[in-house]
């Protein structure tokens, strides 16, 4: 197997009083889009900050592109990091601020200026090149921040809640750049609590809650192992017979109307073939009988459910 883009083994982080990240292990295959999912306060940002060596881990092993970021800092230059809370120098001009951050990543200034200009055009900020950052709208500032993350063409992009605060149009722009990076063989890791978005983009995910890993793996595996016993059932016409059938058969754990048909969740031990046979026997023609894939959202809710902390804890000092 190729060297993983990121490997975490038993990583943990304790802030005064509570455990933010608890014995977390995960593997990000290279060249994929990887989602770290979890409710607010689950430990997503703390994990990414430890990976970027912004905060020091209390235990465990981190291999970022094969190197320990705490010991071999140079590896961080090959990574593009978009923090959850964005920060730019407000008084600087857009292109200047982009060139400054690129220079810190080791780009030479002329090269950075040229590439920066291209990215500015690509993000539709052309007329703002020499405007001060503080004159830009919040969404535009986010785009500038994103450019500073990708300008040095890193092998690995780490994006902490990249779409929060973006309007749908700009979310689309961001999505395209992520997919483009993936096409060019880069690895993208991003955190989000938006399951729909993760479902559209990710090949692999890791769901964490309360600082602990709930599940991880490729999206396909995760879906398969969480398929459960949901069946979508539809008939040719609205049939009173079908209605009566479901009402009479309490064995079916749960039945809900869904569109023109029903969603049936089999009780444990019940056989789907038996259900199908009984439905066929009904006088009405059956038009659909399908084993339904659960959405990531449903899997998430099923696993995390009560672990969701609705309010963020006040952020402690990063000691």
């Amino acid at each position: 197997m190729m060297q993983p883009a990121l490997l975490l083994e038993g990583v943990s982080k304790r802030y005064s009083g509570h455990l933010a990240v608890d014995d977390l292990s995960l593997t990000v295959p290279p060249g994929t889009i990887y989602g770290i999912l979890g409710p607010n306060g689950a430990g997503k940002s703390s994990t990414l900050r430890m990976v970027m060596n912004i905060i020091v881990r209390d235990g465990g092993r981190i291999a970022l592109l094969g190197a320990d970021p705490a010991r071999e800092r140079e590896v961080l230059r090959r990574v593009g990091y978009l923090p959850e809370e964005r920060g730019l120098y407000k008084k600087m001009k857009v292109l200047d601020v982009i060139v400054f951050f690129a220079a810190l990543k080791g780009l030479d200034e002329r090269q950075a200026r040229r590439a920066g200009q291209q990215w500015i055009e690509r993000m539709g900020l052309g007329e703002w090149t020499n405007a001060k950052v503080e004159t830009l709208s919040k969404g535009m500032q986010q785009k500038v921040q994103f450019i500073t993350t990708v300008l040095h063409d890193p092998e690995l992009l780490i994006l902490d809640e990249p779409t929060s605060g973006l309007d749908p149009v700009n979310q689309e722009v961001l999505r395209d750049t992520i997919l483009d990076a993936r096409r060019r063989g880069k690895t993208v890791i991003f955190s989000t609590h938006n399951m729909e978005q993760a479902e559209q983009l990710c090949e692999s995910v890791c769901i964490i809650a309360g600082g602990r890993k709930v599940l991880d793996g490729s999206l396909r595996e995760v879906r398969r192992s969480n398929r459960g016993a949901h069946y979508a059932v539809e008939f040719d016409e609205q049939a009173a017979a079908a209605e009566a059938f479901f009402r009479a058969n309490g064995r079916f754990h749960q039945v809900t109307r869904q569109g023109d048909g029903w969603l049936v969740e089999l009780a444990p031990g019940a056989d789907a073939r038996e259900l199908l046979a009984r439905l066929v026997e009904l006088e009405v023609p059956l038009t659909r009988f399908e084993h339904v894939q659960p959405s990531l959202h449903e899997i998430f809710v099923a696993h995390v459910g009560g672990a969701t902390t609705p309010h963020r804890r006040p952020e402690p000092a990063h000691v």
Partner: protein
Amino acid sequence: MSEIWIVVKREFLERVRTKSFLFGTLFFPLFFIGIYSIPFLVGQESRERRLALVDEAPPGVADRFVEVLTTVPPGADADERDTYRIERVEGRLADLRASLTQRVQSEEIDGYVAFPADVVESNSVVFAARNVGNIGVLERIDDAATSAVRTERLRRAGLEGAQLAALTRGVQLQTTRITATGETGGNAFAPLIYAYVVALLTYFLVFFYGVSVMRSVLEEKSNRIAEVIVSSMRASHLLTGKIIGVGGVALLQVGIWALFIIAAITQLDVLAERFDIPPDLFTSVHLNPGVGLALVGFFVLGYLAYAAIFAAMGAAVNTEQEAQSLQMFVVLPLILPMLMTMQISNEPLGRIATVLGLFPLTSSIAMPMRMGVAEVPPLQIVAALLLLVLTLVGVAWLAGKIYRVGILSTGQKPTLKELGRWLRAA
């Protein structure tokens, strides 16, 4: 090294490019010149003071007083050019006091002088006025009254007329400073002016640019820029680059001012003639290339030490308001030598001056002051510089630790206990 340089460049260019830098560089010397020339210009206009004179003294005493007071001495300073209009009032002070007080209150006169009948024996003269705080006026009245009473005493002892005038003529003091190389001429006030200027300038620069470093740290912290930067470079490099970059701006500004001053010195003859400055004004200030070099050393080291403290402060707090309450403690040792300017320039080799000159937090202001007005033993200068370097290393080490943790933390302002924890953690 290169990442430090990138930060230095940004901090330097972003500041130098601003209008406020240009404005400050040009405005500050003008402000300085303005402050020092206002009294000069205003002083040129002499004022007339109206005084009432109650004369109960033996004949001749009050006449002599009026004569001395109304004659402007040749070569007098600006504040000695005031003229006095004396109005004699007949009667005794005891009877006149109420009406005189009322006239002073209604601003008809500025005040009154009363010579009692026994002035020669009691040796006391009354002066009452709305304002008795003007030292120039007090001196003039004191001189005139003393001269009048003394003349009367000499007259009683048998001396008369021209003989008397010749005997009581005052002297003019010629000041000369003796240094290791011999005698130099010069103005007695020049060292004091020099000490003030050096102290004020160093204080201003260290404070202004120290606060500038602090604001910059605070900006990176509150805008969460620090997080992005720290994921690309070492926090200590960021801190170093920032302090050097801002220091570069300060040096550039000082350099520009130095050019102004050099230009002014080469034109000193012209200036002296034009503005009535004694041409030997600066010869009594002790400056040579070695001293100049040490001055730059004290300024640079002092700035670095304070900038590191200010940076740590910026990292420890969350808002400028919080920072301001802490600033006071930091600025205190800077102000101390300023308050002691008189003592230091009067006794540059005395105990207070020596201690302030060696103590690392005050030496960058006190030592340049001393060095300008006297020849400080080279050993002391070297010792002070060495102490400053050691302090700088210690302060930078501490500040770096507080900075590393502080720039990434938000929320409550840390307590001293928490700061201790930061020091251990970083």
